[in-house]
């Protein structure tokens, strides 16, 4: 069950321009968080940047009771967070959200991530006991490639693409994913990132009868399922309804979600 926690920053590292990894000491999160879950982080001292920022858990270390979040500076909240001092406390609520399904029935798995959507996928790869794990990560350019070493260690094979071709394949990460499908016969693909990429991965997965889980993003209010702002369309029989990313998600089965 999620809790409001004040946790100490154990480390804060700049991974790329505007991208930071924060390691927080937290027994509760480290011991209970599941892959795909997030924490809702207070990103100011006062009343500006009023809302908490939902940030997915990138890694948990059960031995040292720490966990990592990685965030990109997007505005005043993340700017504030990037300037926190090691040893100071951060006010978080977590672990929140519906996690990825990583049980043993899936022997060959793939993760497809883009940009800041890659982070929950690292935690998933580490938690999965699948026999074969491939990671497909897309970035805008070489400078923004982060956690390459961690993803290499957590997967059997890592594929990278950049929009400008400054590293890896030039073009869409889904191009690389399509190339591997026939060879690898994945049981499931997990995806998180920009909506166009997610839609493409879902389309490929459905065409090839691969099960697929998506982690969605939407502007949130409370993060705990009360305010109902983070709506996303999901199927309800032949009809549809608005589910909520924070509590019903962020992880959904691809066939539950309706992409407009």
């Amino acid at each position, binding site marked *: 069950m999620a809790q409001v926690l004040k946790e100490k920053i154990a480390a804060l590292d700049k991974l790329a321009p505007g991208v930071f990894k924060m390691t927080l000491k937290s027994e509760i999160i480290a011991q209970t968080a599941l892959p795909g879950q997030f924490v809702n982080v207070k990103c100011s001292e006062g009343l500006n940047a009023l809302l908490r920022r939902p940030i997915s858990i990138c890694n948990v270390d059960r031995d040292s009771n720490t966990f990592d979040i990685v965030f990109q500076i997007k505005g005043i909240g993340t700017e504030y967070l990037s300037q926190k001092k090691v040893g100071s406390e951060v006010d978080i609520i977590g672990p929140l959200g519906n996690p990825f399904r990583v049980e043993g029935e899936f022997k060959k798995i793939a993760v497809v991530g883009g940009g800041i959507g890659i982070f929950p996928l690292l935690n998933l790869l580490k938690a999965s006991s699948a026999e074969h794990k491939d990671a497909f990560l897309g970035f805008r350019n070489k400078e923004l490639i982060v956690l390459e070493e961690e993803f290499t260690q957590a997967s059997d094979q890592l594929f990278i693409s950049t929009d400008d071709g400054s590293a890896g394949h030039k073009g869409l990460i889904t191009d690389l994913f399509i190339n591997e499908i026939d060879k690898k016969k994945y049981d499931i693909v997990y995806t998180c990132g920009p909506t166009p990429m997610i839609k493409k991965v879902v389309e490929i997965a459905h065409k090839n009868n691969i099960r697929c889980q998506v982690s969605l993003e939407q502007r949130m209010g409370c993060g705990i399922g009360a305010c109902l702002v*983070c709506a996303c369309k999901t199927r309800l029989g032949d009809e549809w309804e608005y589910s909520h990313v924070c509590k019903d998600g962020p992880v959904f089965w691809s066939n539950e979600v309706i992409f407009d």
Partner: protein
Amino acid sequence: MNNNVDLSVNIAGLKLKNPVIAASGTFGFGREYAEYMDLNKLGGISVKGLTLKPRQGNKPPRIAETPAGILNSVGLQNPGVEAFIKEEIPFLRQYNLGIIANIAGNTIEDYCEMAEILGDADIDAIELNVSCPNVKAGGIAFGTSCAGISEITKRVKAYCKKPLIVKLTPNVTDIKETAKAAEDSGADAVSLINTILGMAIDIHRRKPILANNMGGLSGPAVKPVAVRMVYEVSKTVKIPVIGMGGITTGEDAIEFLLAGAAAVMVGTANFVNPAACLDVIHGMEAYLRQYHIGCVSEIVGKLELNQ
């Protein structure tokens, strides 16, 4: 010395153990918050705005953060009044708190039918939502004119067996007039303010952030406006006033009480701090102790204007 402070209030027959009510639309039906706080500590809850039939609400994005506030355009997503009675009242009744059913509709008939359906339900009051800025039909359309408020208040009152609270919109020229119209038409209390209609623009996309283009502003940014309006209304009407708008601390709540509110609602603060209502209660208690005030109702309307 007796340290006990009497926080209990009676708002037109709605008896609450303390004057802090979770505001409609920010607290669901209490379920999510029960994980973070003891709901027994709350004075009351005004539940998510109910409609006759379930509603899906507006397209996302439904929220935009603005300086010290938020804009929302949820659009009354809710399971409908029948589901509320069946599923949510039994849940809430496990706790010792006042239950206020906030109702909204497209037509006056919708409101009347809901008041009638709720007549036999185990609730403590009805809050008439004639001030939601986020739905196309009904809602705020009734709340922006005295004639509209009068008609809907009179007609719903005829079906209403519980205290009727009319929730007022700040999106009017003179809120004193709409408050008076509510009082004259049989409202037992008024609550204010609902959100202030606003807009936030993504300058890179040159589009509003909210899919609905406009939304309701709430949070600390609106507090001075809300305090002023509560003051004006409480000087105008004799029925109790429930004040809200940007309350995050006990000190904020005391401002509203001094301005004339008999009770307060806490809304947006719940999103930031799930136990915000409890912090407000504790803060009020501390203030009353500091000034050796034994009973919270003693400070209601005790504002002294500068001469």
